[in-house]
């Protein structure tokens, strides 16, 4: 585990964090703008005026929102900058270059790279200093949708092929859901939740995870194809999703947004909704005057549904009730 313990006061904003995060995998830090996400990363890196080791001795890689490659150096020079100053050499340079697909641009100048290419080079540069921890501050935020989708597979590879832990800051819950294993929720400089991604996402009492951001992640393996759909088995049931996904036996992440789930007391028969799962209500939490979040268990998996308080009253929903969850749509990550 990595202990993160930081205090910072800037005007009327106070960051006060004392948590432990796993030393493997990607830890997401999620919160609204102004919640202190970037401040936390800057504290960890030593970029905020704080007691402790100077920045260059902390051995953390930092990937900024803006790639910020050094314009006077070639791509190769940029990558070697950190490597030459590294105190340990644990990272295989060739692997990093291959993994990020930048072998063909080593002799180019940063000015000739696209935003996505530049960000890949910046990630390679951060990795080449063999950091103990990599910090990423919304590395996809400066890119358009298309570039972002191009870059995401590289993050997946990073995840699979490197053992260095990553702390990944984002205000996009989709990104976090796709990439992270662990999730820290930050609100007004304080940690309000920290735990496994699937566990934190299934909480109904987190204001930052209500509304558009509410939804769960389910790990499931593709097991069948039919009518242009793929059947995913998640152990306690299955879910159909549009698209053809290879049946490689590797589980993929499905994101089910709370707004795409509705609840019925009786088994719906004539409906366009493909996925109807037997579930039991675990918790009902009123989010505001009109809406509520309902957490349901489907075997060991959790599902969230966003419904109106009126429906909760009409159906008399309470913990322990047996219901049918109707899942309107699923996003498959990978």
């Amino acid at each position, binding site marked *: 585990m990595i202990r993160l313990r930081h205090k910072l006061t800037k005007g009327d904003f106070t960051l006060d964090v004392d948590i432990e995060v796993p030393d493997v995998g990607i830890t997401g830090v999620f919160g609204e703008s102004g919640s202190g996400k970037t401040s936390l990363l800057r504290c960890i890196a*030593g*970029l905020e005026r704080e007691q402790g080791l*100077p920045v*260059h001795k902390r051995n953390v*890689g930092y990937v900024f929102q803006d790639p*910020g490659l050094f314009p006077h150096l070639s791509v190769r020079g940029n990558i070697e900058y950190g490597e030459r100053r*590294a105190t340990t050499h644990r990272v295989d340079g060739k692997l990093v270059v291959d993994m990020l697909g930048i072998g063909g641009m080593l002799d180019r100048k940063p000015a000739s790279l696209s935003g996505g290419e530049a960000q890949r080079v910046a990630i390679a*540069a951060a990795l080449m200093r063999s950091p103990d921890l990599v910090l990423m501050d919304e590395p996809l935020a400066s890119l358009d949708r298309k570039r972002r989708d191009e870059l995401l597979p590289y993050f997946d590879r990073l995840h699979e092929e490197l053992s260095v832990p990553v702390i990944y800051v984002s205000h996009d819950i989709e990104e976090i859901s796709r990439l992270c294993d662990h999730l820290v929720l930050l609100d007004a400089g304080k940690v309000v939740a920290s735990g496994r991604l699937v566990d934190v996402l299934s909480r109904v009492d987190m204001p930052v995870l209500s509304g558009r951001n509410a939804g769960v992640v389910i790990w499931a393996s593709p097991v069948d194809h039919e009518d242009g759909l793929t059947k995913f088995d998640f152990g306690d049931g299955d879910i159909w999703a549009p698209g053809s996904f290879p049946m490689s036996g590797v589980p993929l992440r499905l994101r089910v947004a709370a707004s795409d789930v509705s609840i019925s007391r009786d088994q719906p028969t004539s409906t366009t909704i493909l996925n109807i799962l037997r579930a039991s209500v675990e918790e009902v939490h009123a989010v505001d005057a009109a809406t509520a979040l309902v957490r349901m268990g489907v075997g060991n998996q959790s599902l969230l549904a966003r419904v109106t308080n009126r429906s909760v009253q009409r159906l008399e929903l309470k913990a322990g009730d047996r219901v049918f969850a109707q899942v309107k749509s699923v996003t498959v990550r990978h």
Partner: protein
Amino acid sequence: MSIFGPLWLSVQLAFATTVILVLVGTPVAWWLSQTRTRWKPVVQAVVAMPIVLPPTVLGFYLLILLGPDGAIGSWWVQLTGSALTFSFTGLVIASCIYSLPFAVQPIQNAFESLPKHYLERAWTLGASRLDAFFSVAVPLSLRGFVSGIVLSFAHTLGEFGVVLMVGGNIPGETRVISIAIYDHVESLNYTAAHQMSLLLVGFAFAVLATMFVINRRWSER
């Protein structure tokens, strides 16, 4: 008398002054570009004063300061046995103060326009403050350095009032080209004055044109 003697002396003076100014002016420029102290405008004003002060005023105070009874001059006499005024060394010191803003300001501007995240990236990549300064800040501020070097060299070359006050007119020691031209005009030797003046006009043009060409190349890159 050769027209090249005074020119050569001027070039030597400008060269020595420029080298010293880059060494001294760079840390000053860096400090000014990074500091958040409220005293910054005061320091900036002091550095910029030679631009507005008449050279005679500057030369007058330097004469007092560097003279055998002055604060620096008397110490120098004790140390070396010779006076600073009316010597080449004295001229170099005076020129450094006279041309200081011309070196500091372009370099400071270059440092200030450097995006802060370049330095922060360099630190997180394992570079110490000094390392990041030399490996990132300086190479990315080369235009500022070229401007600072060219301007302080050219400004020193054209120096007149301060030299007259502090250095006088000693051939081979303090008789720089601008003084020599003044002398020739005084003695109505217009031919020699023309030769030297044209040499300076050509030189100034060549130096500035080179600087602008370099700047253009860089901005095209």
